[in-house]
């Protein structure tokens, strides 16, 4: 029998799988709304209510909170979600089908991207209200850095979800979520932390992405880009291996 007559074309499978993933989450509003709404709510609190109208502070916070906004959908949405799907046997059935293994991962990343972008839109709107004024090129770079953040966090979420049960995944994801935010300097600059804790930041994608976002809005020296882009690339590669090996270990 010819290959072509047995296996459905991959692009169509990837597209359908991604669409299904987005629909699945969108129909769980009680689950997805908190992960999307938390960062804009925090931002409103920090930048609008407590920022006393400083456009500079509002801009700095917007840069780092955009990175923060990806973590909810990526870690809770898809890390904890895939653990539940694995426990219920849904992943096992997909693995026994001719679905390409990559379609699963691509669909989770696509859904993370869609829900992150909703959070970005809310954040940017609040930022403008708070007095953030950026050049068009700065907006483009900021959106670029925030979008880039989707990849490492979605991969980390997947890697956790492939390894742990739903309850274990939620517990671990909570710790990772807080550590990434606090130790990565997304809520406040890491300079306020003890020096030993500052060193940890170098291993966290949140720190490098936050610094890159600050460069995009002109609050950091852009000459230092590779100091952060390099480690971020390595961390993302490690996260990809973490997710991929997690997927592989499903075969027993």
């Amino acid at each position, binding site marked *: 029998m010819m290959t*072509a007559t*047995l296996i459905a074309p991959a692009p169509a499978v990837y597209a359908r799988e991604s669409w*299904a993933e987005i629909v699945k989450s969108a*129909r769980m509003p009680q689950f997805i709304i908190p992960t999307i709404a938390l960062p804009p709510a925090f931002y409103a609190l920090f930048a609008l209510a407590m920022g006393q109208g400083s456009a500079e502070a509002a801009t700095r916070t917007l840069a780092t909170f955009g990175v923060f906004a990806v973590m909810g959908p990526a870690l809770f949405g898809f890390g904890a979600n895939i653990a539940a799907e694995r426990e219920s046997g849904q992943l096992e*059935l997909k693995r026994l089908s001719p*679905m390409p293994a990559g379609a699963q991962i691509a669909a989770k990343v696509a859904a993370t991207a869609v829900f992150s972008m909703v959070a970005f839109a809310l954040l940017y709107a609040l930022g403008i209200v708070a007095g953030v004024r950026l050049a068009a090129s700065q907006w483009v770079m900021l959106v670029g850095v925030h979008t880039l953040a989707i990849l490492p966090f979605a991969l980390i979420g997947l890697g956790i979800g492939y390894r742990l049960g739903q309850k274990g995944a939620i517990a671990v994801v909570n710790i990772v979520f807080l550590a990434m935010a606090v130790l990565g300097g997304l809520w406040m600059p890491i300079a306020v932390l003890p020096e030993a804790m500052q060193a940890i930041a170098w291993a966290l994608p949140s720190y490098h992405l936050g610094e890159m976002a600050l460069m995009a809005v002109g609050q950091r020296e852009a000459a230092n880009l590779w100091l952060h882009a390099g480690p971020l690339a390595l961390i993302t590669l490690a996260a990809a291996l973490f997710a991929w090996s997690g997927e592989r270990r499903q075969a027993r």
Partner: protein
Amino acid sequence: MTSSASLIIAMLEGAGKAYGAHRVLDGIDFTLESGAVTALLGPNGAGKSTFAGLLTGRLRANSGRVSLFGRDPSDRLARARMGVMLQAGGLPETLTVAEAVDLHAGYFARRQPTPAVLEQAGLTALAGRRCDRLSGGETRKVQFALAICGSPDLLVLDEPTTGFDPDARRAMWDVVRAKADSGAAVLLATHHMDEAEALADRIVVIADGRIIADGPPAAIKAEVAATAIRLRTRLAGELFHALPGVVRADTVGADLSLLTIAPRLTLEAAFALDPALAHFEVAGASLEDALANLVNTNRTTALKEAA
């Protein structure tokens, strides 16, 4: 088996599966052919699901060889010709029945149209229902729909009718029978004897990780050629177990059920033992009796060999 044109769909050669020192399956030799329903029977924990797992590539054999459509079972070209219904298995909670079937069918180039799949699985009326609002039996029907949606040449069903009412069971049996009649190989793991009796062209009995019987249902029954006697007595069951010809004695509600290879001798001795015997009936052993006896005999033999 049903025709000279049957093809080899799957083959296990000396296949075994162990978790650490615990051997679940050992030295399994098995060939599955197209156009027939093969029932996999055995007590709980005998290795039925593991057997199906090796054949479908869900589990990897530690020893021996497994091939599916002449390939490694994990090969996507093999998987494209297989439909599987696992024993447990959730569904995408927030998708509708039709969406879930459509998504899964999309993995297969030879997919059937979704309405046709829903029709066969008895789900037409539930097409728009969300999967988290289905009963246990309805969930099984959707899982069955996922198994057949890709027009598979091999259909693997693990306890498919759990939670079904009698009408729904018969309806699913009809569809499974039709799939086999049109050339598919069906592997059915079940512990419902009536299911095996109604559907199977061949029965494979697994106990303690080995195949202990393999043949058409009639041959499995004949292998024990036993008679079942059901009676009501006030005496202890053990007294009857010791009667001539009796190979098994079980209490079933208020009755005592004896399995005997010498019914006449057993009956005479039973009346001698308890002249007040009431309510007795004699019947050819059911497949269930045959199976229980086979498994038991296998255990006893194994124990003797070990001693």
